[in-house]
């Protein structure tokens, strides 16, 4: 069974190689290649997951069998394999769901470009998940940024170009901070691989030397990731980027791209710095405050939107806030809740974007809430999808959002500080009600029949979109009802991290 250890590397390589191959293929074939790559990577990840669950321990894989410090390593544990599987699944469903719109929105001669970017994005996401080397992480962050940028502007409208520019500027600022942080860490530790770096950092903290550079480096890293994953004060690029892209782009960007960065941050906390040291330099408290602020202000901004696409995008800001709040609790339970919320939010948000596109027919001019009135009757499955996604975001039992809220609340009780405990519970309560205000309001809006049956025709439902929506709904239900094994896997994965 040793050969399974090659699978994570194969998945990354496959996704990377398929990019150049797609560039010479016509759009139709590029699409097939891309689907095939996503499916294959997913299957490889499933095998890896089964393997690590079977062996019960994580493994590192040295590329070209060169040992550190010369070679490059990737590492696969339960958490990595699970996240990779899940990301592949979401990506596949998003591609299938938005497949019809992709063909309409993107000029024919650029279609293969879209699929190249998808492959590249997949490669970078997998690399971010599996990497055991901080600098490799940085390289793939940049690749991820470029791919995401391309996905935002591939539609080629003025708004998309504007959004892509905004995204590029903010993202590069974030990458710059990350690079500085990694350079400082390399300077004080002399390592780039995660394990030796962790050892060196523990030494540094014990001896009390270089504590200021360390604090600065950790701070820069967190701010860099925060900018790239749209934590509250750095979210200005997000609504345009998510709201106006083509269907698959929106779904993938909102559910996966920011989560890849966040996953790297989790690795950084657990495998590079160590949660005790994080607590010692009080980064967790800062993240907690910004997370809470994001939960509230993201929702407040979402309420003010008249464009439903932007509304859903702003709700992402709130949901990202949840994740950072879980980091801020800095307990194992908090981290488990955050990771579960990464999954729950991905499943819910991509469902919402696919359904919204189904309701508007892919045209963002129709995404104004007035024009969406009664839209659920024009495209029933999209209406159901939107309702399920909304209810999940609000946190209605049986759906994914409720389960993650329960985990967050239970995590809050495990925190020693009473202030944090109360703030978390109050923030959860306020944010739930704010979420209900816009999501339920919008669901009722799309189910409010028009007085006259004039005007807008039924939106045709492609078979692909129907299937994707149904699978998304099932995924949300699965995360809501059968969270037990996933919970155990995350627990196991975090144990392997430490």
């Amino acid at each position, binding site marked *: 069974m040793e050969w399974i250890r090659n699978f994570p590397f194969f998945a990354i390589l496959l996704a990377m190689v398929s990019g150049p191959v797609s560039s010479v293929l016509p759009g139709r074939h590029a699409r097939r290649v891309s689907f095939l790559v996503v499916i294959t990577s997913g299957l490889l990840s499933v095998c890896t997951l089964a393997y690590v669950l079977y062996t019960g321990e994580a493994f590192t894989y040295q590329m070209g069998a060169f040992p550190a410090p010369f070679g490059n390593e990737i590492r696969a544990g339960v958490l990595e394999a699970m996240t990779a599987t899940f990301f592949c699944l979401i990506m596949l469903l998003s591609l299938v769901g938005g497949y019809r719109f992709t063909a309409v929105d993107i000029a024919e001669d650029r279609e293969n470009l879209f699929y190249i970017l998808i492959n590249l994005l997949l490669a970078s996401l997998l690399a971010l998940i599996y990497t055991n080397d901080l600098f490799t992480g940085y390289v793939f962050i940049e690749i991820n940024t470029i791919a995401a940028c391309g996905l935002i502007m591939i539609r080629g409208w003025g708004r998309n170009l504007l959004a892509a520019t905004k995204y590029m500027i903010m993202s590069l600022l974030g990458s710059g901070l990350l690079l500085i942080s990694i350079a400082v860490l390399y300077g004080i530790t002399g390592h780039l691989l995660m394990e030796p770096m962790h050892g060196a950092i523990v030494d540094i903290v014990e001896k009390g030397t270089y504590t200021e550079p360390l604090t600065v480096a950790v701070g820069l890293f967190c701010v860099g990731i925060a900018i790239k994953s749209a934590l509250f004060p750095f979210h200005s690029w997000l609504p345009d980027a998510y709201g106006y892209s083509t269907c698959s782009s929106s779904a993938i960007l909102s559910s996966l791209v920011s989560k890849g960065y966040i996953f790297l941050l989790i690795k950084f906390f657990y495998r590079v710095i160590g949660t005790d040291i994080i607590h010692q330099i009080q980064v967790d408290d800062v993240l907690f405050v910004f997370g809470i602020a994001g939960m509230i202000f993201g929702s407040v901004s979402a309420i003010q939107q008249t464009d439903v696409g932007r509304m859903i995008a702003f709700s992402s800001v709130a949901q990202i806030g949840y994740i950072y709040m879980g980091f801020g609790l800095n307990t194992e339970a908090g981290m488990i809740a955050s990771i579960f919320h990464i999954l729950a939010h991905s499943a819910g948000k991509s469902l919402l974007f696919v359904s919204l596109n189904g309701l508007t027919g892919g045209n963002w001019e129709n995404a104004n809430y007035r024009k969406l009135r009664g839209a659920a009757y024009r495209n029933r499955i999209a209406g159901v999808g939107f309702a399920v996604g909304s209810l999940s975001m609000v946190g*209605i*039992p049986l759906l994914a959002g409720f389960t993650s809220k*329960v985990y967050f*609340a239970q995590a809050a009780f495990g925190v020693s500080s009473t202030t944090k405990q109360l703030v978390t519970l109050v923030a959860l*309560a306020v944010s*739930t*009600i704010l979420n209900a205000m816009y999501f*339920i309001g919008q669901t009722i809006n799309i189910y409010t029949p028009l007085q006259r049956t004039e005007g807008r025709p039924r939106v045709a439902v492609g078979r692909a979109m129907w299937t994707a929506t149904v699978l998304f709904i099932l995924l949300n239900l699965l995360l809501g009802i059968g969270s*037990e094994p996933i919970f155990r896997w995350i627990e196991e994965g975090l144990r392997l991290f430490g």
Partner: protein
Amino acid sequence: MGAWLIPMTIVTPFAGAMAVAFCKPLRRSLRALHIAVGAFVLATALLALVTSLQEEAETVLFEFLPNVPLYFRADSVAVTFALLTVCMWLSSTVFSFEYLAHGEREDRYNIFSLLALAALMGVCFSGNLVTTYLFYEMMTLATFPLVMHEQTKEAISAGMTYLYYSLAGAFLGLVGIFFLYAYSTPGSRGAGGRLMYRAGGFLSQALTESQSSALLVAVFLMLVGLGSKAGMFPLHGWLPKAHPVAPAPASALLSGNITKMGILFIIRIVYYCVGPRFIGGTWAQYALLTLTVLTIFLGSMLAFREKVMKKRLAYSTVSQTSYILAGIYILTNPTGSFLHIIFHSVIKNLLFLCAGAVIVKTGKTKVAEWKGLGRQMPFTMTAFTIGGLALVGIPPLAGFVSKWHIATTALGSGTPYFSIIVPVILLVSALLTAGYLMGPAADAWFVAKAPEHAEAKEAAEVSEAEVAEVSEVAADVVEATEEKKENAPAPETTATTSKREAGLRILIPLGILAAAAIVFGLFPNPLVEFFEGFYLPSYWPM
């Protein structure tokens, strides 16, 4: 025995709803479907009652959260509420056949009313906190479309108000659940997991003694939050807004069933989660009692001042529900509350149906327009008078017995101040009730007729009503038997404007409910004995 039947009471209405939603041919035999579903659930609940008298049936579906499975349990409380719920649901449903116009909207109403039944059964039979919470949320989601049924601007805004109050209240409840989970005895206890209901509460003794103040605040907020469904001040705002715009059967469902589920959840928390020992004698108990007393008084006053009949009844529900809550929060013996739950459901359903019957036949919504109605609709008005007298608490009728028990328990409880205040406020409120219900009844019987200008308007409405009736009859060709019965009153209305009773499908539920109000009042003892058997005296706070 019969444990598997419990989930069936949820699945069957749900399947019925799906059948109506997705299977067009079934829609023709919609009414038969409703009756079949209702009858099945009723039969199952009865069977569960029989079973629960011997041993408590329980069933675990699957592990929902770590340590918290979806878990159903048919104990006596559950079965009582389930039976009550099905009966009330059936009566409001039969009424809705007559009340609602045919068409797309009726289908939608039926789908959601079936879904509501499924959720209601879930709340009744759930055996741990999270299961209850789950179905409680489902119930909110299934019932707000009923409030919005008319789709006017007011209806939609009322539906949203209802939704927000419910969600906000339920979320306060959820926060409380988190606290209770943290303070519960660790480790799994039986099939229901950590949050399984146990008479007397499941809190861990050591934890509650060390840090009880935070938990007390959480429990207090939880009970206030869940009070929103039961219409308790300060979260009662949705009730008077939702009732006037909702169609009459939905109003009856809201005040007969939904408010009762709020009460059931509160009973579960007070007696089965935290235990009366924990909150007995604390500031939380007094604060809650103060809120209920305030609500009783405010509700009655507002009802007294209200001009629109259905709104008046809605305010009356606010005050009557708080009678029940006062009986619960006295914490010594909730028998009176249980009696009032049953009796108030019966009576309030009856009153709403009367108001609905008047609206269907004459379009009169205001109390002042009821003058002289007794001649036109003698049967309906008789039923209304019986209901009104029962709610005031005149001895041979149902309301008297329950109020008697609540008042005597309060007097004997030894709770400072409130042992006096509660009986006094019950009396004051009874006077107000007499004012707001007996006034219109007296007007209907003894004032000769309505003012002149209203007469002309009525005439126009009568012709409209006839047209509607004719078309309805035409639509009912399939149901030949019912048609015969309906044809009988129809010519009568065309001949004279003096008599125009509603159709039999309204009159029969009215008759049954009125009879129930009398029978329960005359022979309450079997019920009293049944409810007294619920609680062991060993866990009363002393």
